[in-house]
């Protein structure tokens, strides 16, 4: 299992170092620095030297590194790194060099608690916050009864929830966030279109509520089976937060759970059939001789005109030897960014059922070597509120609690793309 845990900054200085086992020396950190941090061409997140393996995850110029000397479960190690990052985020907001330095005492306490002898332990943020606090001495001001409550929670069946939560107003917010992955070929055929959906929930509910959740879904395991008609959405796969009872879902397809307090990700799903693409991009790119490239890029919105796409950013790649680009756009702003070799076209808002067209010419300098332009794809980022590309709708959310209070439920839908909506040309 994990033998040591390090955090490095970009220069390769060790910010945090915790050895869980005696089979490693502290000097192992130097090896990582030489092999990864100062190596400009790292081709794998896992590096094995002899029988020592280094797993690293990068975030904001930091390296989160786990070192192990055995045949560790790689997925577990990476999940642990991700989890550490999310815990750190919830404790002190941003994870960067400065925040790590400012909170190093807290981090040591945390990594000691969430990992014992290299085995990850309870890592539920909510529970951790109840006994690892930013205030100093905690053992004196917590009565033993209270701390045994903590321990039962930390080890109990519902380790993610405290029993004694109280709210004046009982509210639950459900956000359905869908990320569309698209790659379209130069001929306009869809190579791949799928939706990664997340259902995020913010629960502000008193007591220990029992929730039931319903979607217009239909889980398709066997694609060749007959498909019933109707508006049901076919989900290829879904995965749930650990609070959801998987056995009940398996037997009768109900999603029932006791939610943690506050924000969490209830489920993730994936859908590939009948993906409605909110934006259509029609590019026409011509290389005129060796000195010019002309662009005509049309963006069409493909949803009801009551909705609108916001913060649309279209990145149109240009050849490496571009000097200037003349752009003409009817709305938004377009600018050539030489550092990234793209024209960035920002449109704050496009109403549904509309289209806008970018036209421009890139001027190239003549180069001595004739290198073929790789033509990276056009990339579009956008957000569309109250629209789901998969067509998923939340049917109901029921909350049952002993005291029988009424609760207010809110549902919001959002479809977005960031760096995954690609059109080749």
């Amino acid at each position, binding site marked *: 299992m994990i033998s040591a845990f390090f955090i490095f900054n970009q220069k390769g200085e060790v910010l945090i170092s915790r050895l869980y086992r005696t089979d490693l020396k502290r000097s192992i950190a130097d090896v990582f620095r030489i092999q990864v941090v100062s190596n400009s061409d790292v081709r794998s997140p896992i590096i094995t030297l002899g029988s020592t393996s280094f797993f690293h995850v990068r975030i904001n110029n930091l390296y989160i590194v786990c070192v192990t000397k055995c045949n560790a479960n*790689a997925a577990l190690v990476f999940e642990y790194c991700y989890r550490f990052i999310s815990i750190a985020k919830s404790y002190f907001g941003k994870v960067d060099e400065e925040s790590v330095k400012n909170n190093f005492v807290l981090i040591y306490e945390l990594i000691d608690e969430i990992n014992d002898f290299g085995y990850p332990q309870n890592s539920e943020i909510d529970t951790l916050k109840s006994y690892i606090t930013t205030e100093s001495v905690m053992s004196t001001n917590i009565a033993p009864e209270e701390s045994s409550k903590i*321990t039962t929670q930390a*080890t109990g069946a519902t380790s993610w929830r405290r029993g004694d939560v109280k709210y004046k107003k009982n509210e639950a917010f459900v956000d359905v966030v869908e990320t569309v992955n698209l790659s379209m070929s130069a001929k306009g055929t869809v190579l791949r279109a799928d939706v990664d959906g997340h259902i995020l929930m913010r629960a502000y509910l008193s007591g220990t509520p029992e929730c039931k959740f319903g979607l217009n879904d239909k889980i398709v395991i066997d694609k060749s089976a007959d498909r019933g008609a109707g508006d049901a959405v076919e989900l290829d796969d879904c995965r749930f937060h650990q609070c959801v009872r998987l056995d009940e879902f398996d037997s009768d397809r109900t999603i029932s759970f006791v939610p943690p307090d506050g924000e969490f990700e209830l489920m993730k799903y994936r859908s590939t059939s009948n993906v409605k693409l909110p934006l259509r991009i029609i590019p026409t790119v011509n290389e005129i001789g060796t000195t010019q490239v002309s662009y005509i890029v049309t963006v069409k919105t493909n949803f009801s005109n009551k909705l609108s796409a916001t913060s649309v950013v279209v990145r149109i790649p240009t050849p490496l030897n571009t000097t200037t680009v003349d752009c003409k756009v009817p709305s938004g702003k377009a600018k050539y960014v030489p550092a990234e070799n793209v024209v960035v076209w920002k449109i704050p808002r496009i109403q549904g059922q509309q289209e806008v067209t970018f036209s421009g010419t890139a001027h190239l300098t003549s180069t001595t070597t004739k290198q073929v332009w790789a033509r990276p*794809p056009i990339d579009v980022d956008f957000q569309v509120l109250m629209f789901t590309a998969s067509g998923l709708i939340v049917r109901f959310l029921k909350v049952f609690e002993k005291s029988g209070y009424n609760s207010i439920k809110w549902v919001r839908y959002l479809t977005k793309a960031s760096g995954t909506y690609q059109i080749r040309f």
Partner: protein
Amino acid sequence: MVYLFLIYYGRSKSEQINLVIPSFLQDCNDRNPLIRALAIRTMSYIPTPVVIDALTEQLRHCLKDRDPYVRKTAAICVAKLYTADPRKAEKGGFVEMLRDLLVDSNATVVSNAVAALSEIGDRQDGVIFKLNLTIANKLLSALGESSEWGQIYILDSLLRYVPERHKDAEIMAERVLIQLSHANSAVVLTAIKILLYLMNYMEDRKLMEHICKKMGPPLVTLLSSGPEVQYVALRNILLIIQRRPSVLKNDVKVFFCKYNDPIYVKLAKLEIMYRLARDENAREVLAELQEYASEVDVDFVRKAVRSIGRLAIKVSTAADSCIQALLDLIDTKVTYVVQEAVIVIKDVFRRFPGRYEGIIPKLCENLDLLDEPESKAAMVWIVGQFADKIDNADELMDDLTFNFLDEPVEVQLALLTASVKLFIYKAQSETAKALVHRVLKSATEDIDNPDLRDRGFMYWRLLAINPTVAGEIVLAEKPAITTDSDRMDRGALDQLLLHTGTLGSIYHKNPETFIRNAAGKALTDSPALNPLSRQVLVPIARPNLPPPAVRVPGPGPVEPSAQTALVEPVTTSKPSPPVLPGQPAEASGSGVDLIETASTNGGHDEDGDGEGDDDYATSPSAPITSDPYANLDSAFGAYMADEPKPHGNEQMNRLF
């Protein structure tokens, strides 16, 4: 924080630690369970004899503490104690106490006890940790309540349970199946590992198919998590689809690369795309590969080009369009693209003799672009092989041999063979005669490399004694190459799949081959094991890996006694598994190795006249045979060079 300080201080200044022990002991009896747990946790991190002595007594109490938090901490402490002083831990009866914790009422305690026992069980000197049906069922029922990490430990430990009846395995698989929709990718992969393991013990075809179908979607979903997890998932998928091809057979599209994927993800995806390519989807895959061939990263482009060629060899219906694609790529004149294309085209020629020879002139045009040994050797082979169809073959050869002495050995060998072939085709031509004479002379007189020199002598004598017979030998019909060789041996695959999700599955190597002290795993024979799996059963590799420096790789003499000792306990009542007594224990079938080298080596090696080459395979310089890909080296050529692999020990030692 004070505790943390004490841990480090205690390790370095062991004599002063005495001073703090009393306060530790006091804390161990504190009313607050958090403090109690913290105290034993801290003590167990300091592996000095004094502390351990003080700890043992406290630990015994804590393992029976009424608070589950203390119990779960204590369970891990036992593992720590065991690492520090195995004898003491065993004498103190701690292992038995851990076993009792397996049936604890609290799921977290159970899972930590499992983790600790697995840790102890993995040690070579440790006690053997096996599960029977009752305990396994108890663990399964704790599964639902434990934390995500706990689920991983529990699932992992199920590998230690050997089903005796088909039914047991089937029921258990159904209970594990629901874990596939967990959000934590490690849980999913571990669950898949168990399912794959249990499937070896099942007989209900329908259920197995159902499981395969269920496994597909979660695997694909793993691709939407962070790039590092994607990478782990992809490397595992590569293994899984070789063993159970039905898992993802319709999903080739999800493995198409995104432009901004990290390079390691792209390379892994490429490999999977090639594996999943079939008649129906070959066109899509080819279009995608062509797209990649124009990207920026040199390695990726090379691999993409090579995949196009391999696709042509694998899916014969797509061969025409693949060749066209390769020719288009050659027109780009980008050096590395052309070189890769030439290398694969050579293989395509071998696969479809007489079908694509029309493109040879095009290849000859680009002769000047080739500057790497492998591509040059490939081109030389083509010129030699088809010398009768290339009008100016002797001119070309003359150019190529101009710097004969300065070429790398690989190219020299190819040149030598090619010039002999040329001579045989064009025995009348004066230039050819002069050429072969010159090459043979320099190969035998000016060169120190024994391979080259010997081959030179051999040809010389062949030609001297009887040129016609020489012609028959050198231009003999070559066995057609297939892509079968890039499939892993089934037994080795079964064994690797027991490591799904771990480092071993990423490198596609058994952990005991690259990690010192790592325990190998093997399927255990039982009445329920299905006959096919039993046939290819690979007994566990030697439990003790000698230090790498002493190790002599290759199928050398192997102690048959060790072999039988390993097999015997399994075979007491059953007919012995078909492991030949002479077969070395560490080989993933080095018997297979010998058979296969004939075809793979022939598939790659240019001269095709065997003899000299087959010796390489059996010579001690052959790669370590416990590597399941070992016999593929020739099939992939330099291609395997960018496979992820653990680095050797030397580098590590130098750094310290």
